């Protein structure tokens, strides 16, 4: 694992694709910023979990802990003005796309200052101005929106692309088939990024699929694709960079499967009877943050001390965000029927 992260060759050959190591060319500042985003996600989710334990969150939340490399690596590989669609486990995508932590936390607490004025909660945070077309409470709910946004990009010739996150569960919904096929026949600029975190709620992927890799489904649609290590930020970044430029050049959609693992339960009510503690521990050893931090320190991008300071800074940001959320007012009852129609 560490070997791959520090590989200095020009190309990373994966499944026959000559994927350039674009990560190496990045400014150190950006490399550190990505680490900071991973910390923000981890600590945001930790704070959220504390709120859940204390009963401060009215609804449910789906935590992204353990999957940080996929969101950060993929979103940093596209342009800031490109679009993303997210999932019910969307906090990581949202933070990577630049969302404000305070407004996110306020939304989780159902406050008027939240991203959706308290009307959406954890599963519906969107930041349209930042190109985030929204988390989605329905498994596979973002696939249609992403494909349609990609059609806009094509019709308006604005050179933007769409990065569509969805889970292994969504790959078995009908909308996956319909949209990926349409994107293929129309050569739409969309990257379908399947986060295979091993379970669809409690259903293990090995029981939900009879194929070795979800990316094998690319054959059905006549598109390119591959499976990558979703806990390796550099691999995610390089792969998505490679396909993003192909998408932008009009070469059509692609299906990337990012292998990762959900450390926490499906939602706040999950007793996790379907998996062993040993299994969870074995994946925690592949901690994406630990791997990336180690790689940056080994490469001399930042020192141990700078790393500690960075994490401290993030913890401070989260304190501010939670304080803001707690102090914010709830929506007024009179707002209940606002925003139904434009």
């Amino acid at each position, binding site marked *: 694992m560490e070997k791959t992260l520090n590989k200095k060759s020009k190309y990373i050959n994966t499944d026959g694709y000559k994927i350039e190591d674009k990560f190496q060319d990045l400014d150190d500042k950006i490399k550190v910023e990505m680490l900071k985003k991973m910390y923000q996600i981890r600590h945001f989710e930790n704070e959220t979990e504390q709120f859940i334990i204390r009963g401060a969150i009215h609804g449910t939340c789906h935590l992204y802990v353990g999957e940080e490399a996929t969101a950060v690596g993929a979103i940093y590989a596209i342009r800031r003005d490109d679009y993303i669609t997210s999932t019910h486990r969307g906090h990581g995508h949202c933070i990577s796309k630049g969302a404000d932590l305070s407004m996110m936390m306020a939304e989780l607490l159902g406050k008027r200052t939240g991203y*959706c004025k308290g009307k959406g909660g954890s599963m*519906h945070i969107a930041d*349209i101005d930042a190109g985030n077309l929204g988390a989605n409470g329905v498994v596979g*709910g973002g696939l249609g929106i992403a494909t*349609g946004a990609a059609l806009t990009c094509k019709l308006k010739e604005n050179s933007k692309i769409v990065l569509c996150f969805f889970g292994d569960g969504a790959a078995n919904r009908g*909308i996956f088939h319909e949209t990926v096929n349409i994107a293929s026949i129309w050569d739409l600029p969309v990257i379908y990024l399947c986060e295979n975190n091993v379970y669809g709620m409690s259903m293990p992927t090995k029981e939900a699929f009879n194929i070795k890799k979800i990316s094998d489904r690319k054959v059905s649609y006549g598109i390119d694709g591959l499976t990558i290590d979703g806990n390796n930020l550099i691999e995610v970044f390089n792969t998505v960079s490679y396909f993003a430029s192909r998408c932008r050049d009009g070469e059509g959609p692609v299906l990337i499967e990012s292998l990762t693992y959900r450390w926490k339960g499906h939602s706040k009510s999950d007793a996790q009877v379907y998996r062993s503690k040993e299994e969870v521990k074995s994946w925690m050893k592949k901690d994406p943050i630990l791997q990336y931090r180690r790689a940056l320190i080994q490469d001399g991008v930042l020192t141990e001390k700078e790393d500690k300071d960075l994490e401290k800074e993030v913890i401070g940001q989260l304190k501010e965000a939670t304080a803001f959320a707690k102090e914010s007012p709830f929506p007024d009852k009179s707002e209940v029927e606002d925003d139904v129609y434009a």
Partner: protein
Amino acid sequence: MREITYLEAIREAMAQMMRKNSDIYLIGEDIAQYGGAFGVTVGMLAEFGKERIRNTPISEAAIVGVGIGSAVTGMRPIAEIMFSDFMTISMEQIVNQAAKIRYMFGGKVKVPLVIRTAGGGGTGAAAQHSQSLQGLVVHIPGLKVVMPSCPYDAKGLLIASINDDNPVIFIEHKLLYKNKKYIEHVPQKMYEVPLGSADIKRKGTDISMVATSFMVKKSLEVAQILAEEENIECEVVDLRTLRPLDIDTVLGSVKKTGRLVCVEEACSFGGFMGEVVSQVVEKGFDYLDAPVVRVAGRNCPVPYSLVLEQEMIPGVERIKKGVLDVLRKA
């Protein structure tokens, strides 16, 4: 004065709007060379090209899903679902996505999407190609539901729907499309019939008949017969849009006549006219001089055999009986 069909009015509305606004495009099954299952889009491919007349595979969920995604990012799609029965395949997109994302996102997004579809029976197409499913969508906050009954309204309502920044379900009726009996003058220029405005299609003083779509035509037929045979003057109110609902026009009519019969093609149980009756009772109980009657589809799937189909869907005889029942109870 030129007179055109309902189908031609719909096509003209789309074509005129597309000439004006390059963000508008059509998406649906067999809408390009074939011209749509009912011929609504015939000739549009030649004028607008395949980028804007987008033929899709048989993928109703994707048709609506793609429509939503492009609508929230700056386009104004018009999606065609061949038969309203197939809305059920795209229902996740319509109910959970299109209708809700504006609200869920705290009002930060608009979904200017029109979903055109052909509803209704009377064509011998049986249970899966004849339904009147407006009740399924009208129940969902965030959606608007439009059901024109004539060429003039079809054009004006469709233009208003395309200009609207909300998802609009625009349900057309197969029996109205090409029937020369229903052609009428439609202005060449673009005009809007505002969503949420009912129309009194025939004035009368004895009883109010509230209907939509093809049932407006049937109600007008009955009104004519009753005027000639029984000297009864029926007022026919065409709702035109189910949501937003113009209940004031209905109440105004009931206030005048004191009697109400609601006519709908959908099954009566849980049907939309139940909402109309409820609102009349809640807001205008004192206007009523007699119990209200609903004449609606029988509570079974639409059958195939002509004899059975005519029994299931309200026809002239049943509507006439409904009117006379109200008057006798008065």
